[in-house]
């Protein structure tokens, strides 16, 4: 114990390698500038300025990550590794996941910035609970007080996510968890004046999220009690070889796991997902579904593979069981859904299960395939929710499935795009969704958890059923008389959908481009 403590006391003056953490600094800086924009820029140009700052910050950070990643391969004097007194790990997985988060965030920012078609703003809204618009950015009255605060909020969340996937210290990880969670609670409540659902979603997300943060923190406390340190390396060294009976260690691991699996949306910690996905404004849902998942899985992978790798014999069965539950519950309950957003929420639960299959493989291959899956899934799901924002009727977004009937006849392009994203989710070859599944299943067979693959293929057939059902609705049935109209494609949404479509095809046909990078990024610093 004393030896560990002595190790934790740094002798040299702390120096921070600012370049290595510059992506996070840029994003947080942009977030603060965004707040200033909110305060000082006149209202009519606020949206443009806010978007410019947010998108500029995210893209600049992405550029920095790419720049840093080039150093990964250089043998001489790599500037990467543990920085900021070993609190932050800048290594392959961190950079890959940061790049994924930033790319996905940039795409969802385009959706977030899109203004709801003005002519569709419902007249009487405030008390009307059930059926009003879901568009978070949509305005409330004739002269819209726009929610431009989404830009700084999103940036703070993104900054938190970047820190979350590279934290090498449980306290830093906890701080990052809170930085990313708090803006998300606010974002999901943005449509609260128009829909009670949004309010409910925000409150539910906040309460359950706070609960899970408490679990996480309790786990950190126990692990600190066990190892005398919060550093991932120190805990790993203290855990050593599995002994089987160290209550502090195992209880700490379990509680930490609960906190992370909550963010992942794994069963049985999933109950917030459908409500929040349905209640939150759709562009916010897209952002959460893509980016939060990357961040949460990134942290989960780091904790399990860096710190507790030697205990994998103990946690693999647990992760395997959670994966089975997650796949089965997600896919089966999704079948009964009648709301598009809820269906996509349950499908995201099922996909969390597929990714957990890669985690349970607990190997390099499992890591790189999970990372590929996260990136591929992110683009697909942003695309799918992006299409949902387009299908509207007089009350706003028409999310009830029955309203999508015959959409393929009214607007073949939009329906075709949605069908494409659904087939990608179902894992049809030549889409990124297929290669993601192929990669994680390969890792699982290799890692000796073939039973997860068998459960995976059966549940993905179940999942294919409800994706196919939506296609049936859109293409095989005649349009309903009072069906929704498809909003004209606006430039920002089109750009976002175009990016998602291109990414899904490219990652499906030539996955090599990213598989290679993921493969080279598969080493954590210890």
């Amino acid at each position, binding site marked *: 114990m004393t030896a560990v403590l002595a190790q934790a006391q740094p002798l040299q003056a702390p120096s921070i390698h600012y370049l290595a953490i510059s992506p996070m600094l840029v994003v947080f800086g942009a977030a603060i500038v965004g707040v200033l924009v909110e305060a000082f820029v006149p209202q009519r140009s606020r949206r443009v300025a806010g978007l410019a700052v947010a998108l500029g910050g995210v893209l600049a950070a992405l550029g920095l990550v790419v720049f840093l990643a080039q150093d990964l391969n250089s043998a001489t004097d790599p500037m990467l590794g543990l920085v900021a007194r070993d609190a932050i790990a800048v290594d392959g997985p961190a950079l890959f996941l940061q790049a994924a988060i930033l790319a996905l965030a940039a795409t969802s920012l385009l959706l977030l910035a899109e203004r709801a078609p003005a002519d569709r703003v419902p007249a009487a809204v405030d008390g009307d609970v059930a059926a009003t618009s879901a568009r978070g950015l949509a305005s409330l009255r004739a002269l819209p007080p726009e929610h431009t605060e989404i830009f700084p909020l999103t940036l703070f969340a993104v900054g938190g996510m970047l820190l979350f996937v590279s934290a090498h210290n449980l306290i830093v990880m906890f701080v990052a968890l809170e930085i990313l969670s708090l803006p998300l609670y606010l974002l999901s409540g943005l449509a609260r004046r128009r829909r009670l659902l949004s309010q409910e979603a925000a409150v539910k997300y906040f309460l359950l999220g706070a609960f899970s943060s408490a679990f996480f923190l309790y786990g950190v406390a126990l692990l600190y009690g066990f190892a005398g340190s919060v550093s991932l390396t120190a805990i790993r060294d203290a855990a050593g070889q599995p002994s089987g009976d160290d209550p502090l260690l195992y209880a700490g691991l379990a509680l930490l796991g609960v906190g992370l699996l909550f963010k992942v949306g794994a069963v049985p910690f999933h109950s917030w997902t459908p409500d929040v996905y349905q209640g939150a404004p759709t562009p916010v849902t897209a952002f959460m579904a893509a980016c939060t998942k990357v961040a949460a899985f990134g942290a989960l992978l780091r904790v399990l593979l860096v710190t507790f790798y030697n205990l994998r014999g103990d946690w693999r069965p647990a992760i395997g069981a959670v994966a089975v539950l997650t796949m089965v519950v997600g896919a089966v309950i999704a079948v009964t859904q009648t709301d598009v957003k809820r269906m996509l929420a349950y499908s995201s639960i099922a996909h969390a299960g597929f990714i957990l299959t890669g985690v349970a493989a607990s190997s390099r291959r499992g890591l790189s395939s999970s990372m590929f899956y996260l990136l591929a899934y992110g683009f697909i799901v942003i695309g799918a929710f992006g299409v949902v924002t387009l299908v509207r009727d007089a009350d706003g977004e028409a999310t009830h499935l029955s309203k999508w009937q015959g959409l393929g006849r009214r607007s073949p392009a939009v329906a075709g795009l949605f069908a494409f994203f659904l087939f990608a989710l179902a894992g049809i070859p030549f889409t990124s969704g297929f290669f993601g599944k192929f990669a994680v299943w390969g890792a699982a067979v290799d890692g000796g958890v073939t039973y997860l693959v068998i459960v995976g293929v059966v549940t993905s*057939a179940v999942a294919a059923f409800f994706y196919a059902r939506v296609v049936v609705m859109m293409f095989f049935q005649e349009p309903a008389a009072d069906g929704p109209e498809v909003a004209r494609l606006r430039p920002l949404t089109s750009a976002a959908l175009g990016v998602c479509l291109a990414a899904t095809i490219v990652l499906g046909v030539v996955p090599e481009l990213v598989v290679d990078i993921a493969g080279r990024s598969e080493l954590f610093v210890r």
Partner: protein
Amino acid sequence: MKDFPWLTAIGVVPLVGALAVSLMPASRLRLAKQLAIAFSLVSLALTIGMITQFESGAAEQFQLVEQHQWIKAFGIQYKVGVDGLALVLIALTAFLVPVVLLASWNVDNKVKSYFALILLLETAMIGVFAAIDVFLFYALFEVMLVPMYFLIGVWGGERRVYAAVKFFLYTLLAGLLMLVAVLTMYFLTRDAAGAGTFDYEQWLTLDVARNTQRWLFLGFFVAFAVKVPLFPFHTWLPDAHTEAPTGGSVLLAGVMLKIGTFGFMRYSIPLFPEASRYFAPMMMGLGLFGIFYGALVAIVQKDIKRLVAYTSIAHLGFIILGTFAFTRQGQSGAVLYMVNHGLSTGALFLIIGFLYERRHTRLIEEYGGLRSVVPVLAATFLVAGLSSLALPGLNGFVSEFLVLLGTYSRHPVLGIIATFGIILAALYILVAYQRTMQGPVTVEANRGMADLDLREKLVIAPVLLVIIVLGVYPAPVLRVIEPSVQRVMERVEKTDPAPTIESATGEQK
């Protein structure tokens, strides 16, 4: 000319055609249809060109091989090539697609999408037969479902939604189970050779343990058994075939079912020879059962399209029987049977399509005595039907005879039982012909029915011509098939030089 990428060209031309057709302006539908047919004819011409380059006595299994890295990290390649088995099936596909497109001229709903989807399907089908990288094979095998799903779901009959979803889910799930086996094989090659690969020829060199073989055989079995379809996995077929539009039915029966039997012969047997011999009795049992089940259910159908759909189950039963009898005649017959069934059943579905366009019903009782009203249509129906029941002189006879002979020489009892299947075949075809074509005209609405027009004659004539040619002179096709069959036989015998089942092997070799 050997260096020309024949297979890629044959596969890519329809893909380009699909894009071109879907980009045509909505006002130029006629041109779009002509364009689609032109692209499919180019693909057919290229196929004929490829056949001239094929040497049936070549030493290596695959010819005209093209090989490129695709996804290096996983050892996945773009690798295509043909042996005799693949060659005849690619030829069948390239031949049937222009016929189907011409037959679909009167589609009036979302015309461009229909023609584009069929061309897309052609690309996938040709790719499935040409692939010798198992990942590529698998990817095309699965992606093929999507165009067929839309063909059934959008242009199908009354119960099209049910049929389309059932078809999609059945085949998808079965394919996914095969994926588990494919992944397992991949890691076996990695453990054996250091670097994993999906290269089929590398897989052949792998020595798989007996128990593993059996599990992997079952993994592939599910996928192919659903495609064929074998008895307990067949329930999607009557619905899909009946509800699909004519073009969809022809390609489903003509080509897509063959992917199952092709899969058994290309993948299951050579990769898992020990397991194939172990499961051969089960396979032959299922085949034999299918022969009688399909025939008996066909006889009682009221819907003529459903009747033909069930005859497919019987015919494919013969193919499975011939394949797993493990004799050269049996397997040669089975491969030839794949081609012949594609032609005869394809012709029957085309003719039923003509009838349906005239009367918009598929019920047998709605027809009757048509021979006096539409003699040419009735005659084509008769020829196609006789080909289906294996009348000597038409194509079906040669293959059915070879299958029965090959089965008999190793399993006399099974051969004799299977022969009774022919009687049932005669029954369902002739009864159907009698009820629809012979006798007095029973339904007034049929009196004014028009006979085949020029387009329809152009559709059906090439198919009937090939039916007759192959019936009289099947030798060229058999010569192409023979080396492939020889190879499959060697794979099975290699691990078991003295089959325990029969003593007749020596005479056949």
